[in-house]
């Protein structure tokens, strides 16, 4: 389709992106504030708060734990979720509606209650070690995002290519990995990213599943802003964005970003 026909659409999209990214720009600029209070425009330029991220050891420690939990949990949620998403969008069977509800239910339940329930059962009743409970909790937190986002991108999918692959000798498994997966790649990536970020930013469940020597970055950040007002947390957000941008750049260099989208 021709570009000129997209002008209206392009403009609207531009405004939407402005809305999404404008606040981030403001925060990024404000994070270079030299004084102890976040303001815009900043009263000067300083990297003090960036230095502070590394000076306060808890930020690095919790960052590592957060990454670990979100990545491992994500992996686990993918292993559990992809087969389920596939079964739910590919087949009709009795009880499907119920299963659909069950698989989204972790989203439907207020985090505070879910967190407390985990505390009472995973840790107190099941006696899981704290780390394991945190990991399980995050897996559950991510599962519905993985399942629903992937399932919805499979909803419009033409599964005849799966049959084609099988007729060419691919096992059910192979067909899935070789032809279904590549064609829902962006759906999966979307799911992984959303789930990861939901987990990485999660506070209300994590609060109950952390303990001595075990805390996550967002909890650390929240604790920090209870006592400090300086732009350190803004600086952390900017660092996360920068990290992501660098990652993207590296991927672009290595495999090309189009690798992640369907042709």
């Amino acid at each position, binding site marked *: 389709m021709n570009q000129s026909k997209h002008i209206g659409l392009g403009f609207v999209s531009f405004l939407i992106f402005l809305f999404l990214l404008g606040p981030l720009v403001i925060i990024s600029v404000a994070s270079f504030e030299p*004084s*102890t*209070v*976040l*303001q815009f425009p900043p009263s000067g330029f300083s990297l003090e708060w960036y230095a502070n991220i590394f*000076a*306060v*050891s*808890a930020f690095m420690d919790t960052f590592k734990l957060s990454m670990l939990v979100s990545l491992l949990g994500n992996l686990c949620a993918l292993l559990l979720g992809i087969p389920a998403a596939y079964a739910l969008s590919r087949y009709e069977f009795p009880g499907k509606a119920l299963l659909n509800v069950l698989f989204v239910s972790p989203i439907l339940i207020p985090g505070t209650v879910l967190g407390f329930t985990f*505390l*009472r059962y995973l*840790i*107190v009743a099941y006696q899981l070690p*704290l780390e394991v409970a945190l990991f399980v909790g995050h897996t559950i937190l991510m599962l519905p995002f993985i399942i629903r986002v992937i399932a919805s991108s499979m909803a419009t999918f033409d599964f005849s290519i799966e049959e084609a692959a099988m007729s060419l000798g691919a096992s059910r498994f192979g067909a899935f990995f070789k032809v279904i997966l590549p064609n829902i790649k962006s759906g999966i990536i979307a799911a992984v990213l959303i789930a990861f970020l939901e987990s990485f930013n999660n506070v209300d469940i994590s*609060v*109950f599943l*952390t*303990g*001595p*020597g075990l*805390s996550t970055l967002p*909890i*650390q950040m929240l*604790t*920090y*802003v*209870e*006592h*400090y*007002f*300086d732009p350190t947390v803004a600086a952390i957000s900017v660092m996360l964005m920068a990290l992501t941008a660098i990652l993207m750049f590296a991927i672009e260099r290595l495999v090309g970003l189009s690798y992640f989208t369907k042709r």
Partner: protein
Amino acid sequence: ASGDGNEKPTDLVISTWGFAEDFFKEEVYKPFQEEYNVNIVVDIGNNAERLNKIRQGTANVDVVYLSDYYAQQGIEEGLFAEIDRSNIENIDNLYDIAKAPLGEEYGPAYTIGQFGIAYNPEQTKGPIESWSDLWDDSLAGNLTIPSITSTTGPMFLDAASIVAGQEEFNADAAFAAIADLKGNIVKEYDKSSDFVNMFTQGEIAAGPFMEMYFHDLQAAVPEAEFVTPTEGGYAVMNTVNVVKDSDNKELAEAFINWHLSKEVQEASAKAKVDSPVNIDVELSEQEAEGVTYGEETIEALNLLDMEYVNSESAEWIDRWNKEIAN
């Protein structure tokens, strides 16, 4: 007994708020760890969350720092061990009100802050001197107050009762007074950071505030002022206790003793981490800025009966929700 480096260090779990973590690590924990061959593990979070974990018994906490309101809950629920004061000699060197704010059996306040009023003189009609000044119409849409669920909420409720002319605390009068104040309130705040934000963004000109955070406020808004209201400021007590299930009770008491020592108290004060309660701590005028310091100041602070507060709080929260927060 000083460690010979061969014995495996004991874990001591400390539950605390999580500010100035690096100060504590270096100046408080490290010397103690070396001397006692312990390994200190901290659990951080806000009062309520940490108290909750102690209730569930999931965190193996030995020493717990809580503000008095939450500490009182812990005591009533029997979560804390009775302390052996003979193991904590430094208690004797504390201001009187810090020695046993919640009873002789339980831990002392390791720091006391002052709850007063912060304001921006450039945005108010004149200087603010008393709690009742907050009711002035000139502050319409320019005021914040602490929410009832924050540590200082009940203190402001008490102040409102005083402003309403009550000798003894009277909840009806206090709620009526705060309801009167609604025209001035932009919104209430839960965290000190919310106050600071509103203040620096010019959304508010004044509000009840804790002195220990004033230093930061002033850094952003140099013209800001902190006053002890004429009716008196309130004492914000941060207490330290030993958890009942602790296997390291003696070590815990030793640690508390260490935290109350002149050395640590003075270092905390000078780093502007916590106001000192040890009477031996001497601060220069500059060092005392932003710190609640001095016998008269401390002794002049109003105190709330935490047992009473605790028994009323559910009722107050309910009333607050219905009469104030909407």
